[in-house]
């Protein structure tokens, strides 16, 4: 039998390059010419955080958006990212002028005012059915200087005091005033070697806690007309108080915390008091940690001037002005508010509505929770609007407030004083200089 004379296939440079080129061509052109499955007429892309309560994301991503999408012939795509990545991702989308139609920030984002639509129309439409939004929502999404709503807030998260009832009972005190927190915290630390856990780090919980103390001492970063008033007698008093609180009732661990460190400290039984959302107790309940029953909630503590607290998280949806589906995004938000009672329940009372009428029985719901021990643990939140305010109090959350907040100027100032790294005057002078520079910049841009 004669051997068939077929050409021998060898690996040559020419063959490799030709095949690589053909593969590249197919890979790059293929997706455009391949048949694709039928899709809804429109697409709506939403970016938001990974909720601290997993049940909320499950309901929102797997049920709510699908039902809404079916009714509105829209494919709704939700991307969830960690809260720590929100700012970087927001900056990336703003720079590229591409990304999602709707971006949810967990704090007011006035620096993006020029790149978002005016959300006034959405507020007006929702108000027709559900009445006016709460003041906290307006102060966190409206720029009185430019008369523009740079976002739409559906909800906020209260920031109550979480404390160990057994420990506070053991020293016969209640954390109802800041002075009691200092004295009681010191007594508990001495007796049980368990400190108070108020953060002094570059993170959101510290930022809220320090402002809470400032406001209750009559201090603030700005006044009602957006004028810088950080350098004041009241701020000095607040700084003096935090230094005493740190020295008497805390440990240096709070200087390197992230946003979940206080949750861990409390649930590990290593803290007598933290300022946080109800994520502490909810986590404890779902993990069935024995310490949870001893963690109770309290309203904002009273300072020398007032009893006031902050929102812990302010959910603000922004529709980019370069979004592909602006109308769809507007409709989504309007419809979402119509369903807000369900969102409140699915968030396990974490997201409080910015349109109070959407959850008319809120007081009854929080007064009796089947998972909480005691069942009325969350009742302290029923009048949260009376003691919760916005970042930027007594004014609006403007761009200068936002930059000051996100560069942790206030957090750093308090940490330096508390540890004795700087004197009150020096730390305040540096923080004030930083704020002056920030205020001058945003004034020049015409945003405050």
């Amino acid at each position, binding site marked *: 039998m004669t051997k068939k004379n077929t050409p021998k296939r060898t690996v040559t*440079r020419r063959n490799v390059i030709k095949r690589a080129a053909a593969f590249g061509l197919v890979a790059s052109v293929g997706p455009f010419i391949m048949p694709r499955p039928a899709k809804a007429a429109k697409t709506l892309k939403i970016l938001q955080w990974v909720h601290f309560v997993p049940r909320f994301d499950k309901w929102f991503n797997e049920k709510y958006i699908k039902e809404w999408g079916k009714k509105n012939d829209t494919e709704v795509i939700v991307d969830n990212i960690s809260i720590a990545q929100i700012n970087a991702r927001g900056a990336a989308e703003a720079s590229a002028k591409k990304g999602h139609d709707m971006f949810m920030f967990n704090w007011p984002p006035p*620096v993006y005012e020029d790149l978002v639509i005016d959300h006034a129309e959405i507020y007006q439409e929702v108000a027709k059915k559900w009445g006016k939004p709460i003041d906290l929502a307006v102060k966190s999404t409206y720029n009185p200087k430019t008369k523009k709503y740079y976002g739409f807030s559906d909800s906020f998260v209260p920031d109550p005091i979480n404390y160990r009832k057994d420990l506070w009972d053991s020293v016969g005190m209640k954390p109802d005033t800041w002075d009691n927190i200092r004295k009681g915290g010191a007594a508990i630390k001495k007796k049980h070697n368990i400190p108070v856990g108020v953060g002094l780090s570059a993170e959101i919980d510290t930022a809220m806690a320090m402002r809470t103390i400032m406001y209750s001492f009559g201090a603030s970063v700005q006044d009602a007309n957006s004028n810088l008033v950080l350098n004041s007698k009241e701020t000095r008093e607040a700084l003096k108080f935090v230094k005493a609180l740190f020295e008497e009732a805390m440990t240096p661990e*709070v*200087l*390197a915390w*992230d946003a979940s460190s206080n949750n861990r400290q409390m649930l590990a039984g290593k803290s007598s008091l933290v300022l946080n959302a109800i994520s502490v107790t909810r986590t404890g309940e779902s993990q069935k940690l024995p310490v949870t029953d001893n963690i109770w909630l309290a309203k904002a503590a009273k300072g020398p001037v007032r009893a006031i607290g902050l929102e812990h998280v302010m959910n603000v949806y922004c529709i980019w002005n370069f979004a592909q589906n602006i109308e769809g995004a507007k409709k989504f938000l309007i419809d979402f508010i119509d369903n807000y009672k369900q969102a409140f329940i699915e968030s396990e009372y974490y997201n409080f509505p910015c349109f109070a009428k959407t959850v008319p029985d809120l007081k009854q719901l929080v007064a009796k929770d089947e998972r909480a021990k005691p069942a009325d643990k969350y009742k302290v939140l029923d009048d949260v609007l009376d003691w919760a305010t916005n970042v930027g109090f007594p004014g609006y959350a403007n761009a200068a407030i936002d930059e000051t907040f996100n560069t942790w100027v206030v957090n750093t100032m308090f940490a330096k004083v508390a540890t004795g790294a700087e004197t009150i005057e020096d730390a305040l002078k*540096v923080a004030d200089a*930083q704020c002056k520079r920030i205020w001058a910049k945003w004034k020049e841009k015409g945003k405050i």
Partner: protein
Amino acid sequence: MTPPQDAGTAAMAMAPRRYFGHLIDSEEWLGRAMIGPAVVYIVLLVGFPFLLALFYSVSNITVGSAATKFVGLHNFKMIMENPSFWVALKNTFIFTIVSQVIVLVLAKILAMALMKEFRGKWFVRFLILLPWVAPVSLGAIGWLWIFDSIYSIINWTGRALGIFGPEVWPIWLGQPTLAMASIITVHVWRMLPLATVIVLAGLSSIPQDIHDAAQVDGAGFWRRLFQITIPLVLPILMVAMLFGIVFTSTDMVVVYVLTRGGPYDSTHVLASQAFFTGIEGGDLAEGAAIALFLFPILVAVAIGFLTVARRSEVA
């Protein structure tokens, strides 16, 4: 016989194929085509952002700006008036110099140990390379738990072994000196594998004859180390150090994951401060100015190191 008309058509059809074939076979053109993607990559992902950063640093741009204007050197003036900037600059030098010295010494020791034949050598090499292969954020998060204020394995082990008394509980990331030491430790852990591999490659390239001859002449370990080994691997060491210095002084991952610049801005390096100012704070212009501050220094360092490397190569 093919009609003349058909032959002409076929020849015309063959012409582009021949031309393409000619290009593929040409060393000159193929070389250009192969290097092309790398050049495009560098221009798009390094050159363009660099020029953009230069532009940002002399503008008043913010993350949400629709329009920007030229402000000259205003941003540089502003950052120099901020005490935190000087702390970050000082930290950048400390972080870079201390970590690179430690990496260099440890890499040399490890590489010399790995030159010897011993049982399980491949496994040791695998372990040494592991930190380089693992994603840095994953490794750093592991370290975050090691340094955690409540669950620190160092503290619990120290207490169990009686090294730490009942009152001793170091807060690794909550005290400025300990926090900076922790950052340097993690960075050394991260950089050591690559440095070891580079030094190992350098050591392997020295012919054994030279060591043998020196040994016959009576040269001891230290003499051979300083007069033969180090001078011969110096060009490679210089390039490794240059890479290490540039990489370390422009990196923020470890600082970002472990301390985010805390406590009270005492562990910020320029890269992390640029990120917090430009991205988190939204002031892109000032962030760019901070990031660019090191550029002239690094260029000078690069020129210096490469010059030394070339001279030692000629020698």
